[in-house]
């Protein structure tokens, strides 16, 4: 056995950095904080690589499969006799893979931010929270049990909240941060209920027990039906609700586009590469149980598929480049969810699982790259809107090149990373469900279309009237772009089937060209249409938009989902629940209490009247009393 106990430092380093930079605050020069944060993440990045090396290549396999290793574990809290929360490190293929993804992207984003955030007022705060985020995200992926995951899940949510609301003087940022937190919090409630049901039924939080071959989840809680589904199915659905919230699945996606109010590096790190895939990771983590509950898995597949289509449609209509990317992220995560949903368990059957993880991995690179590139563009032109851009390829050569690579990767053009992972997903979908498969073909085409729409709009076309000539970003910003571009180019060649599979058993992969070639063609078609429409400025696109009429307007307005939510929260919850409750409390409950006091007052006032000081009234009362008593004792009460 190899001692993995050092892995706890992967958690502790960012935590320490957070505490130190958080407490010292603005006492140092901002750059010092930035360097501390970046160094910390750098060390973490090395640690993650080292761990991955040791895990995949040094650690002996058991029966040909990668083992699940508990690096270190502490008991944090005893709940019941059986249930206790541990804080520890669990290493298995997906968690190690996630470690690499997170530390790489986070490290790159740290470096990038030194350049991007230069001169911002909250520089130290930014890096401090970034460390908190890294800490939470790492804690989430290496969780040994579902409760640890929930703990870090919440922490991830709050760091996301803090980062989205980074520009706290901007009302839209504040609103977006609130929205993100509350929507995910609502989803987390589902997650929590799921955990409660699961832990009660199985008597454990532990992932190794839960997802092992003899998981209590397979046996207990099956017979008990509630509304036609077994307890375990319900629990999985609730847990998926949590995952759907974090991963911005329809209908809990509304926070993600707004989350783009945060600084762009944050969008790259949190809202593209790491946090939003937490939901996918969660489903993957619980996959054996999901697989056992086929009806839950079916829902995962359909939610994922629908979201990918839905988001792709919206992405085609947006003008804010970060929003286009946000919807593209949603769409890609939908892909991952779908892949999980159509996956079987073990060996070739688990192709979808592998594909999902693979896509998660490659997506992290090219989507982070896209966001960072978008950041560089925004940095250069101080605008988010693509109709205020054009012809930038002359001014931003490095950004242009890397951005193009990323666009090709996401569109699924070989040999870039996206092609391989997307292809595997399509294969898995093809074998499972033809309808979903067809849908994904469509989405692949749309993805290529909207990415290149973005690309051409920004880098080609006519120059706009910029306030000052756009210039290439500093090296701290271009370096991460280059690194990630290299990743996006070559990540596809990593033999994922050998490393990350549903049952940790490697299997041979082979590209099904019968599916791959049409998908490439579709992507090329999408690119072609985009080229026709947007390479030269023309108004054909506007004509098409007008022709589509109502549908275009609906898509442009994100199908009015926000309005529906706003209606439910602002109108119904605030006006028809909260306000009546407040009123009820003031007037009915408190009113009753005040009424008691009032009645007491009135009664006492009346009684006070008896003590009027009027001697004759007293005498009258006395005499009447005497008479009454006499009457009573002499005439009435005579045995």
């Amino acid at each position: 056995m190899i001692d993995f106990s050092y892995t706890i430092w992967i958690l502790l380093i960012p935590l320490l950095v957070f505490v130190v930079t958080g407490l010292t605050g603005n006492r140092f020069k901002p750059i010092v904080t930035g360097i501390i944060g970046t160094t910390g993440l750098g060390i973490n990045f090395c640690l993650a690589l080292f761990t991955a090396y040791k895990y995949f290549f040094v650690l002996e396999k058991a029966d040909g499969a990668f083992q699940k290793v508990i690096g270190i574990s502490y008991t944090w809290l005893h709940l019941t006799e059986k249930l206790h929360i541990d804080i520890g490190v669990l290493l298995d293929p997906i968690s190690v893979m996630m470690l690499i993804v997170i530390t790489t992207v986070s490290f790159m984003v740290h470096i990038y931010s030194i350049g991007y955030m230069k001169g911002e007022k909250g520089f130290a705060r930014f890096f401090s929270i970034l460390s908190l985020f890294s800490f939470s995200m790492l804690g989430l992926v290496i969780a040994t049990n579902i409760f640890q995951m929930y703990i870090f899940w919440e922490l991830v949510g709050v760091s996301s909240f803090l980062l989205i609301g980074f520009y706290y003087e901007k009302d839209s940022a504040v609103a977006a941060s609130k929205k993100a937190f509350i929507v995910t919090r609502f989803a987390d409630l589902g997650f929590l209920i799921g955990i409660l049901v699961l832990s009660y039924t199985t008597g454990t939080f532990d992932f190794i027990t839960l997802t092992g071959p003899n998981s209590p989840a397979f046996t207990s809680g099956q017979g008990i039906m509630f509304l036609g589904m077994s307890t375990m199915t319900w629990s999985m659905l609730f847990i998926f609700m949590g995952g759907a919230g974090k991963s911005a699945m329809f209908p809990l996606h509304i926070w993600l586009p707004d989350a783009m109010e945060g600084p762009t590096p944050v969008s790259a790190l949190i809202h593209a590469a790491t946090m939003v895939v937490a939901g996918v990771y969660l489903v993957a983590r619980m996959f054996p149980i999901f697989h056992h509950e086929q009806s839950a898995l079916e829902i995962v597949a359909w939610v994922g598929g629908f979201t990918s289509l839905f988001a792709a449609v919206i992405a085609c209509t947006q003008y804010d480049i970060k929003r286009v990317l946000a919807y593209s992220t949603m769409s890609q995560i939908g892909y991952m969810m779908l892949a999980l949903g159509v996956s079987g368990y073990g060996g070739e059957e688990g192709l979808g699982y592998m594909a999902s993880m693979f896509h998660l991995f490659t997506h992290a690179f090219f989507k982070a790259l896209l966001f960072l590139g978008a950041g560089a563009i925004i940095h250069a032109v101080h605008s988010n809107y693509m109709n205020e851009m054009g012809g930038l390829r002359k001014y931003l050569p490095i950004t242009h090149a890397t951005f193009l690579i990323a666009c090709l990767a996401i569109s699924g053009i070989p040999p870039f990373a996206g092609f391989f992972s997307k292809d595997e997903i399509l294969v898995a979908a093809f074998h499972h469900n033809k309808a979903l498969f067809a849908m994904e073909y469509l989405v692949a085409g749309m993805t290529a279309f909207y990415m290149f729409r973005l690309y051409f709009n920004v880098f080609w076309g006519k120059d706009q009237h910029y306030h000052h000539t756009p210039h290439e970003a500093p090296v701290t910003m271009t370096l991460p772009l280059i690194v990630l571009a290299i990743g996006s180019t070559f990540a596809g060649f990593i033999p994922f089937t050998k490393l990350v599979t549903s049952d940790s058993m490697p299997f041979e992969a082979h590209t099904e060209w019968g599916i791959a070639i049409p998908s490439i063609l579709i992507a090329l078609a999408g690119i072609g249409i985009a080229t026709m429409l947007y390479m030269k400025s023309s108004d054909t696109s506007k004509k098409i938009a007008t022709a589509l009429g109502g549908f275009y307007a609906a898509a442009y307005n994100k199908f009015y989902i926000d309005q529906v939510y706003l209606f439910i929260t602002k109108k119904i919850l605030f006006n028809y629940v909260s306000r009546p409750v407040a009123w009820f409390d003031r007037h009915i409950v408190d009113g009753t209490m005040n009424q008691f006091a009032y009645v007491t007052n009135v009664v006492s006032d009346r009684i006070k009247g008896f003590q009027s000081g009027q001697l004759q009234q007293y005498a009258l009362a006395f005499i009447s009393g005497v008479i009454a008593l006499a009457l009573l004792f002499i005439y009435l009460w005579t045995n």
Partner: protein
Amino acid sequence: MTNNQFMFLLFSAVIVIFSLLTVTSRRILRAATFLLFVLFSTSGLYFLLRFNFLAAIQLTLYAGGIVVLIIFSILLTSQINDKLSIPPLTKRIYAAIAAVAGAILCILTILQTEFVQKTFDPARVHIRTIGEGMLSTGKYGYALPFEVISVLLLAAMIGSIILAKKRKD
């Protein structure tokens, strides 16, 4: 109708009529005068019952002392021509109800009760008997109450002097 019956009814009529006038008259001095008549009649009843000493006391002390005192105080505190205001009707009604109800109750009870009445002893009570009774300490002797009453009178005298005295401030 015997003599006594006649006398009794006469006195009672005087008593009742003047009592009523006492409590209803609007001129306070007249009320005092009517009270005097009531007290006279009462002493008449005592005479009728052969309690001559008591009747004399009643005349001197009550009629002579207290009523005079009352008249003095009336003269001190109000004008002769002042008329007392008529009390509110509700007040009168309530008071009348209480009084009439009480009276009816008592009278009914009285009439229903059988008393063992002794034959009348027409002898007057000798003043000596009274004196002895007042000062003896045995059974039917009233030395103690007598002393207590004398102290009470003293206390009342001192008390009223102090109360009625003008304060220096």
